[in-house]
């Protein structure tokens, strides 16, 4: 990893990194997100998604966007925290 002129390293987690959230009212346990993004989403005993907390790593953000787009009930969201 290269060092930036100011001494910080690149690819450090930033406050702007998006997080996955699910609207539990809209979610209908269709399970597409669990298939598309097993790295971050697993199923509970009833088939509803459990999302790994924290920001979505850069290398998974494309897959996360795909999972969001695939959700048939629009329950999955990629949210950039303010700041």
């Amino acid at each position, binding site marked *: 990893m290269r060092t930036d002129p100011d001494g910080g390293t690149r690819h450090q987690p930033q406050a702007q990194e998006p997080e996955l959230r699910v*609207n*539990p*009212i*809209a*979610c*209908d*346990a269709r399970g597409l997100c669990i298939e598309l993004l097993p790295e971050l989403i697993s199923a*509970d*005993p*009833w*088939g*509803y998604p*459990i999302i790994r907390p924290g920001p979505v790593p850069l290398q998974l953000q494309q897959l996360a966007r795909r999972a969001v787009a695939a959700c048939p009930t629009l329950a999955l969201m990629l949210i950039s925290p303010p700041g």
Partner: protein
Amino acid sequence: MHGYGPASAGRPAAPEPGELRLIVRDQPLSLAEHIDQYGPLPAARLGPKALIEDVESSGLTGRGGGAFPAGRKMRAVAEAGTRDTAKGSAAKGSVIVANGSESEPASSKDSVLLSRAPHLVLDGIAACASAVGATRAYLCAGHGDPAQVHFLTEAVAERSRAALDKVRVEVVTVARGYLSGQENALISALNGNAPLPTFVPPRPAERGAHRRPTLVLNVETLAHIALIARFGSHWFAAAGTPGAPGSALVTVTGAVERPGVREIPLGSALSDVLQHCGVSQPAQAVLTGGYFGTWLPLPAALAVPVSHEGMRAAGAALGPGVLAVLPEAACGLAETARIASFLAAESAGQCGPCRNGLPALADALNWIAFGRPGPDIIGRVQQLADLVTGRGACHLPDGAAGLVRSALSVFAADLQAHLRAGPCARAGGPPVLPVPARGSR
């Protein structure tokens, strides 16, 4: 001393520290009696700046359970209203919602307050309406009690004959059910939708009832604001402790000689509050914060301060101020199992983890309390509690999980005995904590 609020020129004096503030006698105060007792609302102190600053510096927190700083809520609504007006999106004003729905079965402090001091609550609504620029106001009374609604409607009429309020208050009732008093459910109902929690955002302060910035405050919070408007923030904070200023209404139930609603200075030791209500028999635990709440063991918890911060430090929460005392003669696991079943039945069923997880959790608890479970049941309860936590649109699943976790720890000895030898004799006794039958409220 107790700040400003001078007893000069015939104006009624502010209640001294140690005196009751909210419910001064055991009968309703008419409008005339109310003004004799407290004096009129001072119009000069109600402007947007003055009152919000007073409430902020008083340290008053919401008395409905969330304990959110009341002044910050008021400021957010005032600012959202100003932004809307600046955008020209219609200067329709914001909305006040006084929440007296009190859907917590063990609590009665809001209905007692409304029945004894309705004008203190209505003063609080008027003061907030003026401070945040509201043009509509609702007073939500609980459980569809027709007599109470009639009484409150009369109190509003009395004020409008005296031309007291700029904003007319509409008295409304909320649907039965544990979740109907939840802030978003209330707003959803006022907007003509099902009285169910919603997935925030938007926050009510931004867009609530009638899509207007909406200030939702518990009725007790509003009563305190009515007094802060009169006597100031220093007077308010003369009761309680620096970290937990003011007084609060609590509902004490269970194994005490004189159950009921008490006003206490926040931060009083639990032992003082219980002593005041007369501890009638040996007690083993107290349920704090209501059915969303936490068990604390007795006598170990007797020194815990009755305040949000004091309870938090003890791993519990004051919530809406419920203290339910469990006698030695009762089984804490059986009580918890009944409450867990109640909470599962009250789930709105909107969110999968709550709809599936709460009945499973209640089943496991009932199996522990009344059946013959295997030793793996404890792991199952813990797993279910973890599975539902944080996964609903409202805090019902979190509350149920917290209650059950605290039961496993406080009643650990009973738990081992139940696993070893089946239900104890006490588990078959009558319930101590009231659990309304479904549809009976």
